[in-house]
């Protein structure tokens, strides 16, 4: 810098200082004048005195007007710690004569002053503003620096919440409504505005992001005392020049265009129009701490909690993001999954939802709602889960499902589209169990299959298929049934029987019997888990077609499988062998008496005489299941009469006719009525699940641990074998189904026979099977469900292969490390790598979701033949799950896999 420039600079500074000093001097003078000689209140009081004089009608009035002195007046409010000088200008508030005068002289409207003595309450407690100020602008807090500007008339009621709450404030009988006048514009009481606002907060889901009175999401700021916030708490920096810097206006703008007020916010535009906006603002302003001492509060309004049905809770806490109809995507800036997606509902258990709601999903925007987070109670969370569940289709009624009505061709279309990716194109199994196993199909009743399809197996990879109509389920069942072997007809069996020598038949029949039947029915037909056969009352009483039908069609839902794989010769041989014990001797055992065929009467007899053994509705117990359609189809009335009347020798079934040893006595007419009741049970569509309840669970538990737990898990949670302690499995599987599976094993799977004498794994007797079943029936689901997730194979091979598959097919959407939200917006699918999700989700959930995808979303099916992005083999999908599991807490990934 050269010297000349320095000189020029100095001169400029001097000149500048001179100007500044002069300006300051002038301003100081002006301020002094304004402050001392022309205060605003003086002129107002002068005008008021004039009005008083005009209004004065009598001497006293005139005198009062004359004596009106110009001075600052104030209300001293020690209880509130305030001094209100408002009445310095608002001189006529208590004077009813001033009703026709303009502000600031007019009378206070409404009846408020009658209840709220100004001397006690002052003005600012309701109206806000600066009590001590003596200039309009300051007193009203118009300028941006005052904390609490005067409340606008329409929002004044928001001050009431300081003292009043609950019923007093809201509802048709609120105290406000009594004091209130009707708003000219809306024709409604102005206090209704706050109530409307409260409803909006409740319905629009504001509390999904904002905490109010201890409950709510944590994405946004807390609302509990938002009404106390001054304008210094709000950011006006993005407002345009000329826009009012008012809290109300800030709110209004924030509700209509949040991004313009706070750029980058996740807050969505509310889409509300004018009257609603006002209501919402009024309510927010009413959310204030009570700064009024208790001595001033005369009424203690009950702060009754908001109503909390599931839909209300959902609307309040969830709807903002997941939208009121569960469609998701309510907030554009947040990735919110739809909750009403059929595919998601089919795989997610209630526990899953409960867990995610309670704990949230870290690394996503989903906050937790449990204690210390959103503070919802368990009960409330349960209600929300229930609300989410109601979006699930009801599911077809099992009663409407019937294989006979199904079209296997149509069923194959459904099967290939929905089932094949897990169960294999021909039912050979994969992620799911093999279905084409002959022994499985022989045992599984229609009811069992239908319930499994419709209700799925929560927690496992078997989703529920509730969107399928009954007809479609029937079609699928009919298709599954085409995998059963073709059964020989009775006439073919008869023909075959005639073509063989008797000795030959007996020899073959014996071999077949010993191999297949003896485990349940005893070596010599003496019975065991199955019926005693070797009795004149049984074999002697029934014809060949009865035996044929029992063998070939089995007894659905009991332990008696359908032995359809036997050839005509083999069936004939078995029949011949059985006959070698007891020939068919149809003996007339008396005949049913004349009866009214009244099954209602029959039911009465049934309840007194039969129920104890044969169970409710004939579903079986100690005695065999009676309401079995296959049984009732082939047995004739005479045989039934014989069995009921005379009993079955060698079994617990005693005769009920007089002179027999039955526990009660029935006359022939009554027996006929019982029979008609049984016939009625046969016509009813429901097929009750047989529960015997005869085993000893304690013994069963030991047996289970010794023989079953290595495959099915210590508590039936599943392992290499399927999960057993699954609620829908235990509800839909009959005792017979379980028993027979243990006895016969399941061909095509590692499940071998468990029975002594068979070429099985264990040496369990039929009685012990009953014990195991009794033990299984004790399982309680909710505690054990979550454990069922640990089925993925955690071998190094599986994890490395899974990591390759993941990188190729999943990372594009879920991010290379499953942390979509952390790695830029390009990854748009939900983050998988968060502990809460991985804790809540079962392996089955993951398997099923990968295999079948989620319709309507970007998650396409990856299962083989599902026509998605790529056809992955079941092993590949299972490997991906193994890899995902390496992200679970406490897991260690082997080298070579991305972590």
């Amino acid at each position: 810098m050269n010297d000349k420039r320095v000189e020029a600079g100095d001169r400029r500074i001097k000149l500048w200082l001179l100007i500044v000093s002069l300006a300051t001097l002038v301003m100081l003078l002006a301020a002094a004048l304004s402050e001392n000689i022309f205060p605003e209140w003086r002129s107002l009081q002068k005008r008021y005195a004039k009005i008083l004089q005009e209004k004065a009608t009598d001497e006293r009035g005139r005198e009062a007007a004359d004596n009106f002195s110009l001075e600052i007046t104030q209300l001293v409010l020690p209880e509130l710690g305030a001094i209100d000088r408002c009445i310095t200008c608002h001189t006529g508030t208590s004077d009813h004569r001033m009703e026709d005068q303009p502000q600031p002289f007019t009378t206070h409207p409404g009846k408020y002053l009658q209840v709220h003595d100004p001397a006690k309450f002052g003005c600012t407690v309701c109206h806000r503003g600066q009590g001590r100020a003596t200039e309009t602008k300051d007193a009203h807090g118009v300028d941006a620096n005052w904390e609490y500007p005067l409340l606008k008339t329409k929002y004044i009621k928001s001050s009431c919440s300081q003292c009043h709450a609950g019923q007093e404030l809201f509802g048709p009988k609120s105290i406000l409504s009594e004091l209130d006048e009707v708003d000219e514009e809306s024709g409604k009481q102005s206090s209704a505005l706050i109530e409307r606002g409260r409803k909006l907060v409740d319905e629009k889901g504001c509390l999904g992001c904002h905490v109010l009175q201890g409950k709510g999401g944590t994405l946004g700021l807390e609302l509990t005392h938002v009404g106390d916030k001054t304008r210094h708490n709000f950011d006006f920096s993005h407002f345009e020049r000329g826009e009012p810097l008012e809290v109300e206006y800030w709110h209004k703008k924030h509700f209509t265009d949040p991004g313009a007020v706070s750029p980058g916010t996740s807050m969505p535009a509310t889409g509300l129009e004018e009257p609603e906006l006002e209501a919402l603002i009024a309510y927010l302003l009413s959310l204030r701490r009570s700064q009024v001492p208790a001595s001033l509060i005369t009424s203690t309004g009950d702060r009754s909690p908001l109503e909390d049905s599931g839909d209300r809770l959902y609307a309040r806490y969830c709807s903002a993001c997941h939208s009121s109809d569960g469609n998701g995507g309510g907030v554009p800036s947040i990735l919110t999954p739809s909750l009403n997606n059929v595919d998601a509902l089919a795989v997610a258990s209630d526990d899953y939802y409960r867990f995610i709601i309670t704990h949230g999903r870290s690394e996503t925007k989903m906050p937790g709602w449990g204690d210390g987070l959103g503070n919802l109670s368990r009960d409330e969370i349960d209600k929300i889960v229930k609300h989410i569940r109601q979006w699930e289709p009801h599911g077809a009624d099992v009663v409407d499902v019937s294989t006979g009505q199904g079209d296997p061709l149509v069923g194959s279309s459904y099967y290939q589209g929905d089932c094949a990716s897990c169960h294999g194109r021909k039912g050979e199994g994969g992620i799911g169990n093999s279905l084409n196993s002959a022994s499985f199909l022989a045992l599984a009743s229609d009811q069992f299959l239908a319930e499994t399809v419709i209700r799925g197996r929560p927690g496992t990879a078997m989703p529920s298929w509730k969107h399928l109509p009954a007809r479609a389920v029937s079609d699928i069942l009919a298709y599954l049934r085409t995998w059963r072997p073709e059964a020989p007809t009775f006439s073919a069996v008869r023909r075959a029987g005639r073509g063989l020598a008797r000795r030959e038949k007996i020899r073959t029949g014996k071999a077949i019997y010993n191999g297949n039947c003896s485990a349940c029915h005893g070596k010599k037909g003496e019975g065991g888990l199955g019926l005693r056969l070797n009795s004149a009352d049984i074999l002697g009483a029934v014809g060949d077609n009865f035996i044929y039908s029992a063998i070939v069609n089995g007894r659905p839902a009991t332990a008696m499988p359908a032995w359809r794989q036997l050839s005509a010769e083999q069936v004939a041989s078995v029949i011949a062998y059985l006959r070698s014990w007891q020939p068919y001797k149809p003996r007339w055992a008396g005949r049913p008496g004349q009866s009214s065929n009244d099954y209602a009467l029959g039911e009465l007899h049934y309840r007194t005489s039969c129920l104890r053994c044969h169970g409710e509705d004939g579903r079986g117990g100690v005695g065999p299941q009676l309401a079995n359609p296959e049984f009732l189809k082939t047995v004739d009335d005479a045989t039934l009469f014989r069995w009921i009347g005379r009993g079955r020798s060698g079994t617990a079934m005693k005769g009920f006719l007089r002179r027999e040893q039955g526990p009660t006595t029935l006359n022939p007419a009554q027996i006929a009525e019982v029979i008609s009741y049984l016939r009625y049970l046969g016509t009813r569509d429901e097929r009750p699940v047989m529960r015997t309840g005869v085993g000893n669970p304690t013994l069963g538990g030991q047996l289970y641990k010794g023989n079953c737990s290595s495959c099915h898990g210590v508590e039936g949670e599943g392992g290499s074998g399927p999960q057993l302690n699954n609620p829908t499995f235990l509800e839909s599987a009959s005792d017979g189904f379980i028993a027979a599976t243990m006895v016969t094993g399941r061909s095509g799977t590692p499940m071998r026979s468990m029975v002594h004498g068979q070429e099985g794994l264990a040496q369990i007797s039929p009685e012990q099977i009953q014990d195991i079943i009794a033990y299984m029936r004790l399982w309680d689901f909710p505690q054990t469900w979550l454990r069922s997730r640990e089925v993925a194979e955690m071998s190094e091979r599986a994890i490395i292969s899974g990591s390759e598959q993941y990188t190729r097919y999943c990372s594009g959407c879920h991010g290379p490390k499953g942390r979509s939200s952390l790695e830029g917006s390009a990854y748009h699918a939900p983050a998988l790598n968060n502990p809460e999700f991985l804790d809540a989700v079962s392996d089955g959930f993951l398997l099923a979701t990968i295999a079948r995808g989620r319709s309507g979303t970007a998650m396409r099916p990856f299962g083989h033949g599902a026509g998605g992005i790529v056809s992955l083999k079941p092993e590949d999908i299972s490997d991906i799950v193994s890899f995902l599991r390496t992200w679970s807490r406490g897991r260690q990934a082997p080298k070579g896999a991305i972590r």
Partner: protein
Amino acid sequence: MKKTTKPIIDRRNFLKWSGGVLAAAATFPLLPGEFAHADTLAQQGLASGAKRTLQAACPYCGVGCGSLITCEGDRITGIIPDKLHPTNKGVQCIKGLNAHEPIYQDRLTHVLVRKDMSDPTTGHVSATKGRFDDDVFDKMPYDEAEELVAEKMANVVKQFGGNSVGLSGSGQLTMETQWIENLLLKGIIGSNSIEANARMCMTSAVTGYFASYGSDAPPTSYEDIESADMITFWGHNAREAHPVLFWRVADYKKKNNIPTLVSDPRRTGTVQGLESINPRNSYHFATLNGDISYLNAIAYVILTKHPEAVMPEKWLNKNANGWKEYVAGIKARYSPRQVISRLKLVDRNRVSVQQIEAVAKHWAEASLKGRRTGKGGVLTYWGIGYNQMLHGQHNTISIINLHLLTGNLGRKGCGTHSQTGQPNAMSERLMGGLTGRLPFNQPMSNEKWRNWIADRWRVSREGMKQTALLKNPMAIGMMERGCEGDLKAMFWMYTTHIHLPDVETLVRPALTKMFCVVQEIYRHAPNMLYGDVIFPAITWGEWTGGTYIQSERRVYVCDGVSVGRDEHDNVLTEARPDLDLAIDKCKSIATKLGLDAAKIIPYKKTIENPYGQKFYNPEDVFEDIIIASKGSDADLSGMLEVRERDGIGLYEQLRRLRGVQWPAPTYEVAAKGGTPRRYMHQEDWKDQPYANFRHADGKARFKLCEQDYGPGNRYLKEVTDEFTKYGAKKGEGPWLYKNQNLLKRARDLALVPELPDIDFYENSRKGLADATKEDKYPFWLGLGIVYEHFHTAKTIRGATTMKLVPEQYVELHAKDAARYGLEDGERVRVVTRRSSYEARVSVGTSSFVRPARNEVPEGYLFSPWNLSVADSADPQKNRWLVNAVSHRAWDPVSGQADYKKIAARIERI
């Protein structure tokens, strides 16, 4: 309460002012400083290999999924579906997700020049054509090669006239390149012999649209799916060809249970997928060639049984011509029974009267529902299988007829929507990159528009007028001209010859004779076999950018990293984008022909990469295109207004909106992303050219398309017998383009190119060996695509897609397999009258030969053509070249060949 008076000064104001004064005093000594200029972040990022994403349309099918190319610096590393793109909404199929895999593979690095070139001016035919070994080529610097090509081409033009030079473009080139290639041929060289691979893909739909609506391109959008009441697919295996489209339909069907129809000879994945959602309202016409008849039969049932679904006479009179003749013809000749008995030879009663009636009932119900609610109706898709017929144009017209009759157009949720194979086939159509077309849906014969385009191209109007008079019998006929010596030289840009039919006896002989200039990215591509001068190009994602238009008229950017690389990460400094190659050729050839190159091509190289390469900016060309679109029915000039008013660049507008659907003629329309639907005065476009149908009278046209095999199938036999003469001898006549009457006859009766020996097939005593011995061809053979592979070049070089479907297969019905003793997985040779290929037998959906998705009907074979050169491009080693077996006969109007009905036999290997 408003304050009326304001004190002049109060305490606060005083303080404020005083403060202000003091602050002013304090600030004055500050001297103005200099702002530091930040370095361009992009450059820094490139140098450090920073991660970033580029917007692009997927390079495979015409659905046009928004794909984000992820890059590290300027190296492409992956593809992510764009969740903000309205087409795919964050979903993508396996091809697109792995579109980066084949990029840095087997790259051509230098300009190669064949040592022994074919020279049309001397009549010399190269002896090394058909080989691509290193020893047949010399490397040559780019400028030298450019000079050589310009010299040769200019000589050919001077000696034989402009029309002796041809060009084969591509539906994968950017719109900008297509504009330039068309300018090169029609504006500079003066040739009408310009074709593209889009010819084999979409032109039946194009010409059908022109015939019915008067203008090309689907009038609908993808968003119509989610409003439709019934969706039909014709010759379209959407689940494999356009998966994202299928998934949207399937999701919607799952949700709303709408009826669907698929017309396809095979039980494709599409058929099965829809059936697995609800088999009871999913219909399948297993027809080989009967689509026209069945569409007419549906019309018959609607006219006779559901007349309430037919649009009122008043409406038809107002909006359409020719409907009375159509209705009369339908009623006389197209009852379901008549149709089924006529088609018995090819369809073997696979379609039943009940099916037709059920579909017609659904169609009528959906139409009524749509009309009543003002939203929805029948939405129809068709694909390449439907276009590739001798009567492809009639196929399209038949669909539109039925839609017009039932009023399924001009409304949300219904309409006709053809699907393209190529990602940018729409641009090829719109830019007029085909014989006799001008940009923006106008023929060369439209003088007014021709002059307008000539001015935009900065070439002489008179020259264009002369060009308009030249003839070229479309892609296949062009090859015949080549064989005959009428076409002397050709350019091949971003495409190879193997998509054309009859490769062995027609296409390759033609290419051998011609002087071929090729732009190619791979070193071992079929182009290398017949190219005389081969320029290395850089491809999708690597280029400098450009635009694609997908099937719902959405113009969308395809950004690139502006550099190519080989598998060793070496930068391909010799390679350039196709756009640059095309522009350079325009310049050099124009100069040789004595034109003012600088005036025609004013573009400057303004893009520079860090490796010293300079490129033209495609946005400059794009701007010219947008300006030229003004006043057309694809008017995009609103984008210019947006640029002017909002200051957003043209490409940037496309990026922000994820594409603009043409037309977008005004600021408002362009700013909201264009026009989703056309015609019928939607969007209140009363006075705009696309408000109404584009025929002079503003009405749509009905045309009854007939299908008749004659008494006892006599016509069919006559015509197919005649067709067998073509392609019988390699490279020799007769020439089909000189026998247009035969093509027209085949078209008018809706026939097929070949008829298998059905008597032989039905003779149960005859086996495979007998067929060879007696030279019989008992099977129908169809060629198409498979999900994992799409084009020939790229997916076969992708590791993932090759892993999924690694080899050539032929689908066969289980009964045929059993009868001829063929086993699943057995290797066989499929033989036709012209050539053969090898494949593995794949029987049914449980075949272990991947992908095993479809079931062919009895007597029908199917192979994908995408794997044609996957084993080797070298003819000596290539066993999979399926298009060598196809027949050349084409639709006389649309120019598409029928790849779906070839007579074939199977031989054991």
